[in-house]
């Protein structure tokens, strides 16, 4: 990674962090984000390191914990925040909400609330790119909980058969809701399951944005060259509980485990690395300030945006509504 890219990585990680903090703040204060939100704070290095390995016209598929993923792919914050608040200016016009922050302008093909279901969809996007004669690659994120569902098996097998240009990134944060991966997966690691599909599988430190970037870049290169898919398992951690449940203290995780991971916070670690490599403190502060302003602007925009009109209820159900009804 060149310095410029490193600074961009820093900027995007911060964008995600501050965005998520703003979301938590709004939820806590009951200021207009309804429904469940799954916060990805702690996982920024995996998300950003992966997305920065892509071209702008490449595809990315997220999952339920994916506020950060479109941001990492380059999406603007205003429509994302407006979506979370259910406004008509939202990126999905208020129809999708927290678990469905698609932004097709930046190749973000959407997110699904059904664990594992995005996997074959990403494979299809890569298959389609090949057929349409482009060399676009599809990056597919999912959690460790997805490793035991049928779509994982079918999707990875198809990807390998088709030498599809897809990169699978499993964000292994060790838990699915309250359940530890070790209790539900009869395998030593997610990555080792790659062998069942004759594709490379690697484990990477998901808290180190550069390691992630490098691993995913190699996989993207392979994918773009038509050499097929790769499965990357990033070891990472979410600081928050599965979802935001108000002020209740619910975690089923040992307190010191959370603390341990916080000590390796991907943003703090990377920030220290950047300073050590000669980046000026001021430069980082400037990024901090710009990001804070962007997020504040997005929140203000969202709050000022109107809710959808009742007559928008049926909008976008059909691409070509037929006249018979």
């Amino acid at each position, binding site marked *: 990674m060149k310095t410029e890219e490193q600074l961009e990585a820093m900027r995007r990680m911060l964008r995600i962090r501050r965005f998520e903090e703003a979301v938590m703040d709004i939820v806590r204060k009951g200021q207009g984000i309804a429904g469940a939100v799954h916060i990805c704070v702690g996982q920024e290095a995996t998300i950003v390191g992966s997305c920065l390995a892509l071209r702008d016209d490449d595809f990315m598929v997220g999952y339920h914990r994916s506020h950060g993923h479109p941001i990492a792919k380059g999406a603007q914050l205003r429509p994302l925040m407006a979506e979370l608040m259910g406004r008509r200016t939202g990126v999905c016009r208020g129809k999708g909400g927290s678990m469905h922050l698609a932004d097709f302008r930046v190749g973000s093909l959407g997110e*699904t609330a059904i664990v594992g279901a995005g996997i074959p969809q990403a494979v299809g996007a890569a298959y389609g790119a090949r057929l349409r004669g482009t060399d676009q690659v599809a990056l597919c994120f999912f959690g460790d909980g997805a490793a035991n569902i049928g779509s994982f098996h079918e999707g990875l097998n198809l990807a390998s058969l088709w030498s599809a240009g897809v990169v699978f990134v499993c964000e292994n944060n060790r838990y699915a809701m309250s359940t530890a991966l070790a209790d539900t997966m009869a395998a030593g690691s997610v990555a080792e399951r790659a062998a069942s599909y004759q594709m490379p599988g690697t484990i990477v430190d998901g808290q180190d944005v550069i390691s992630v970037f490098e691993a995913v870049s190699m996989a993207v290169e392979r994918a773009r060259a038509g050499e097929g898919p790769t499965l990357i398992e990033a070891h990472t951690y979410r600081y928050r509980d599965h979802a935001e449940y108000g002020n209740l203290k619910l975690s089923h995780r040992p307190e010191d485990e959370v603390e341990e991971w916080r000590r390796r916070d991907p943003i703090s670690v990377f920030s220290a690395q950047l300073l050590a490599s000669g980046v000026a403190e001021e430069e980082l502060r400037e990024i901090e300030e710009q990001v804070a302003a962007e997020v504040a602007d997005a929140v203000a925009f969202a709050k000022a945006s109107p809710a*959808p009109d009742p007559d928008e*209820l049926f909008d976008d159900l059909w691409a070509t509504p037929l006249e018979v009804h």
Partner: protein
Amino acid sequence: MPTMSYRDAIRQAMLEEMRRDPAVVVFCEDARFWTMPTHGFVDEFGPERVPIMPISEEGFTGAAIGAAMTGLRPIVDYTIANLMYVAWDQIVNHAAKNRYLFGGQASVPIVFRAAMKYANATAAQHSDRPYPQLMNVPGLKIVVPSNPADALGLLKSAIRDDDPVVYFEPLRLWGTKGEVPEGEHLVPLGKAAICREGTDVTVVAIGDAVPAALKAAEVLSGEGVDLEVVDPRTLVPLDKATILDSVAKTGRLVIADPAHKTCGAAAEVAAIVAEEGFASLRAPIVRVVAPDVHPPFSPALEALMYPSPARVIAAVQSVAPAELMAR
């Protein structure tokens, strides 16, 4: 009578039946999680009867079928009704059919629990009310309790029943409280409840449309319109007689149901009455249902989706006897 929340009634039913019958087991992801009615069950019944579940709905539904055909009585909790779709083949092609396919050699005594998260800003993939789809599949009994007492009594009956029963829970009823009879309380499958007797218009209401219909009845009684509110409780097998008797009395039918309109439960009730109760019908049948569009995330829009007292009132007014409306 003691008071209990709908959620606690579900919990109580499972507890009582698991204590009564060691063949009852629970397959549920995060069964130990604090939000789950099964919270604490692992401690009491052990990890064999409440195993830790991977995210493998298709797999553990199939496992429940295999276990059920050989002597267990699993409760499979999907936690969100939409997640049944991942296991649809096992539910529809196997649980519903195996007994018939095998000429009665084995039964499939499973209760499939499905909480419906609609009206909760969780968007289309977490807000379905899929019982009409399953009503079209023979071999499944289907239940939608509308209050804590029925939630308790129907779940206990479902667990004891030798056929697969799909038990749908409107999540927004979980927190509502109601009286529950003391002692063991069983509500038979297949029997409707007349929640309110009345003479002018029959309202058949399903799930959390029942409280909406009862509120509408209250308002309308002030205007001199007397609603009869019928809660089928069990959708398969449906207590047609109670519905037809009511329409025979009132001659007018409104059906309130939070599921989608086309081929919905309300369509079936309407078709039955148009077929078997036509002679007594004195006005068009009106459906107060979710329109054929997905639940949108935005609460402002989702608020338009489901039967409300106002929508029930408007529907009743459109069919009530002219002399009553004129008053």
